[in-house]
């Protein structure tokens, strides 16, 4: 346990020292400022005089779009921080001196994972809350389930980060990064496929999409995050327009993921970690 924490701290220190965190922080600040200006304009001029519910709808939708873009940046960052932290250390030889110490490979890997998860959770929490505050100050709108949003967002990132960790035990940094991001895009497309399949009653799309949702639950977690941002009025309206199931958009979801799906995602993460440890144990360095 002590060694796991040692590696976790090391990973976090590295991210801070290498200024990755600062780049991400700067980017986030930019988004915050731009969204503050944009929303302010919207309320003060663009939609001036329109009904409160219209403004609320527009605001909630804009917030979802911002967070959608943000979830992509988050996934990208998770991959580009995680993959080099294992594969890179193997490639350069830094791992040689470390793994001959009295530490197990499982401790090394789990430590990295814990460090990355703590970084992710901290960052998501701070950045999301800041964005919510900005939205609230400019428009008076607060999303219905902000904490649930943070939870799903962290879960989505942890899913992608765990996969990146598994892949990096075997592959070179760039190849590994490309593969994980490819998987992330596929899962997202799987989510769209399910929506389309529901809408137009195409079973093959639903089946295919559902399988990708099971194989890589990133989009599933995103659907939970999106749902947490939807005001009840918006959901009611979508229902009235005849949407059903998990939604008809990557930007919309009529219901949160089922408890069973959330449990599956938890089991998935544990399973991937176990696989990563197994793979890493047998890895020749």
């Amino acid at each position, binding site marked *: 346990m002590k060694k796991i924490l*040692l590696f976790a701290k*090391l990973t976090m220190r*590295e991210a801070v020292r290498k200024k990755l965190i600062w780049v991400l922080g700067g980017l986030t600040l930019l988004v915050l400022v731009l969204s503050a200006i944009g929303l302010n304009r919207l309320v003060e001029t663009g939609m001036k005089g329109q009904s409160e519910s219209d403004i609320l709808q527009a605001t909630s939708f804009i917030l979802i779009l911002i967070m959608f873009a943000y979830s992509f940046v988050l996934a990208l960052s998770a991959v580009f921080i995680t993959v080099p932290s294992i594969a890179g250390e193997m490639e350069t*030889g830094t791992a*040689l*001196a470390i793994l*001959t*110490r009295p*530490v197990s490979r499982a401790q090394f890997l789990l430590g990295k994972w814990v460090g990355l998860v703590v970084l992710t959770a901290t960052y998501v929490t701070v950045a999301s809350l800041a964005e919510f505050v900005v939205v609230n100050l400019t428009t008076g709108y607060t999303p219905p389930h902000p904490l649930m949003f943070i939870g799903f967002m962290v879960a989505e990132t942890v899913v992608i980060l765990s996969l990146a960790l598994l892949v990096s035990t075997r592959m070179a940094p760039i190849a590994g990064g490309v593969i994980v991001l490819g998987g992330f895009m596929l899962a997202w497309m799987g989510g769209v496929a399910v929506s389309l399949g529901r809408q137009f009653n195409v079973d093959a799309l639903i089946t295919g999409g559902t399988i990708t949702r099971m194989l890589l639950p990133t989009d599933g977690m995103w659907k939970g995050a999106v749902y947490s941002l939807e005001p009840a009025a918006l959901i009611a309206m979508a229902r009235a327009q005849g949407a059903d199931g998990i939604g008809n958009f990557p930007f919309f979801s009529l219901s949160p993921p089922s408890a069973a799906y959330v449990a599956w995602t938890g089991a998935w993460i544990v399973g991937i970690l176990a696989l990563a440890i197994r793979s890493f144990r047998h890895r020749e360095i």
Partner: protein
Amino acid sequence: MTLGTSPEIDSAIHTVGLSKAYGAVRAVDDLSMTVPRGEIFGFLGPNGAGKTTSVKLLTGLSNPTSGKAWLLGKPVGDVPTRGRIGYLPELFRYQGWMSAVEVLRLHCELADVPMGRRKTEIEQALVLVGLADRANDKVITFSKGMQQRLGLGVSLLGKPDLVFLDEPTSALDPVGRKEVRDIIVELRSRGITVFLNSHLLSEVQQVCDRVAVIDRGRVVAQGTMAELLGAGEIRIQVTDLDEAGMQAIAPFGQAFRSDEWLTVVGVAPERVPDLIAELVRLGARVHAVERGRQTLEERFIQLLERP
């Protein structure tokens, strides 16, 4: 086997039939050797002989295809034993974003060096490898040679009983090489076993007590330095020696003739007088006898000669 007499338990390193294949390449082939504690052991071989692979097998970074190995009496892979082992990899790289002190501190933690001893150990290591004045500089600003020195310092933290040094002077200048040789000898005086991988013959000849020569994955010779070089050659200036005489001295070793000089390879030192007596008995006239000074280099080339 009784306790305290088996080579697995007693020696610093003991291997039995250790082998590693990468596809068709036998990087290490049936390596069986024993490294006694407290000695400097030279593991000598040309590039690609399998030296680094052997060290990786011994440090548990890589898994053998077959065979077994013990370090300090425990099977390879035993986690607590790793706390008593130091390792300077051939590919030495340390966290560029850390300072030298931070890297050393990290390795103190990794090696379970007790809190109270860390500061002294780090200071000693820095002084020993000559980096005291760069202690707080980022490793990324270090030259290759300085990084290798840092690696040597890292490998000595925690007072290890056994240290693996894989080409420890590859990035150093002649002065640095001399310093590292002195450090290695100093380690022996502290009772530390040093496993030195090298293709630098003079380096090995100067410091090692015992040597194994490896070629294409196989050990082609091993023994103490004296044993390895002892199978020396004798040069004799001789006249009146005929073909029959040449035949008659064959049991002493391989004999070659060039004009008046007869070279006999592989004569045990104590048999030299007998050889001379035999020559005289055969009616040859001996004008001069000198010991061929075989260097490790000559022996090495001889061992690696391919038929």
